[in-house]
């Protein structure tokens, strides 16, 4: 069979499907009428993205100003010029994707999984290029402190980001949670770069970058559990004991 023939069969089958009854349509119209009032559309995508990047920057700077800018002080000009612009670009990309996740029918430029991979790979490349100290003193004990610090800053960044976009509607909550987590994770990495003066390559490559995937996974897990809870409460409403 040719494609044209299959098209024809599908179109004929499509035409055979019934229409909604006028009574159903009238019922829908009547159901929305009482609450029909003007609504304020969401701001433009770039304005929301800018807001998200500002949130990340604010959380990173606030965290570092409390803990100290030791990392920034120790960095050379090349490191500053590569690391922070890379973080801003990745945060803009993640912010833009988060905005699109919260607006149904938006064009998707990159999938949440690809965003996570790209963010981690880009940071790996930048850190591997800049840091050549391959010693591993106190690799785990110091590393865990950095990881926890990064995650502790990722949480408020992701929460504020969600608050900013709370009027949006995520048609795929798990994807949206993952992207919000990645965005928060980038804020956490930003804070670590400003604060942490341990420039051992292994430390940076493992513990600093691990904040991004762990935060992304946590975001997806939270979204999944919220959806699961919503489903459970719907089930309880439907089948009360």
């Amino acid at each position, binding site marked *: *069979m040719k494609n044209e023939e299959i098209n024809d069969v599908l*179109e004929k089958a499509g035409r055979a499907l019934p229409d*909604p009854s006028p009574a159903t349509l009238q*019922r829908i*119209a009547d159901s929305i*009428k009482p*609450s029909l009032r003007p609504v304020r559309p*969401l701001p433009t995508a770039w304005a929301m993205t800018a807001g998200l990047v500002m949130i990340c920057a604010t959380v990173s700077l606030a965290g570092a100003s409390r803990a100290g800018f030791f990392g920034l002080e120790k960095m050379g000009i090349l490191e500053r010029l590569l690391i922070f612009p890379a973080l801003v670009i990745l945060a803009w990309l993640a912010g833009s994707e988060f905005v699109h996740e919260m607006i*149904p*029918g938006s064009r998707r430029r990159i999938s949440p999984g690809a965003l996570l991979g790209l963010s981690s790979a880009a940071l790996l490349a930048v850190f591997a290029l800049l840091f050549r100290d391959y010693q591993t003193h106190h690799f785990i004990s110091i590393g865990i402190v950095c990881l926890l610090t990064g995650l502790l800053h990722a949480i408020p960044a992701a929460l504020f980001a969600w608050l900013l976009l709370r009027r949006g509607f995520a048609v795929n909550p798990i994807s949206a949670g993952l992207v919000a987590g990645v965005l928060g994770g980038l804020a956490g990495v930003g804070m670590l770069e400003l604060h942490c003066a341990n420039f051992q390559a292994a430390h940076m490559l493992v513990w600093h970058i691990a904040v991004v995937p762990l935060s992304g996974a946590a975001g997806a897990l939270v979204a999944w559990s919220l959806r699961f809870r919503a489903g459970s409460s719907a089930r309880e409403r439907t089948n009360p004991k």
Partner: protein
Amino acid sequence: MGARVHLAPKNNLREHTGIDNDCRKVFEPMCPDSNLEILMARYQQGDYGAATDLIGRTSPQLLRFFLAQSASRADADDLLQETWLRIHKVRHTYRASEPALPWFYAIARYVRVDHYRKSVRTTLGTTKLEAMSKEATAVPGKFDHVESLETLLAPLPESQREVIEMLKVAGMSLEEVARATSSSVGSVKQKAHRAYTKLRETMNATGFGKGQSGGLS
């Protein structure tokens, strides 16, 4: 008195031609150049006439979308109403510069997935789900007398089925389908290509079209 809800012509809402039964009213736009995007903007401003026009123009497509996804008529009607309640709740998320149809379909997909997830948990149970899954992927024995879209698309996985429904029944573009399904245009093309390959294999295997005078034209 509320505005009457007018049904759009069948198969392609963008073409105002052809009325084929008595219950269907002729679509009369409230202004000559009104399209879905303009109607959405007016709906956001609280215009009831625009809301009823939108309901009349998009509901037939949305109902067909649900019916093509193996929903019963009663389920499809429920899903349609649920979709409109959701659309009404989140109407502020539509942006005037964007195409409206993918926005509607994205919400319809969400409602469909959410509905089945809840119904599986509440009533069907695991056994029934397995039965449904087998049924959905089963190859129909004969196509000769088949006219239903659901049966035609039954051999396809759900993701390919919805892409074919949007492209060939709703008449959406690749870009619109990509937006509605939160995927890339390349991914939509790939799904459509695979779906056509599968449909061709199934139709050839079952001898579909042989001896049919008007079936394939």
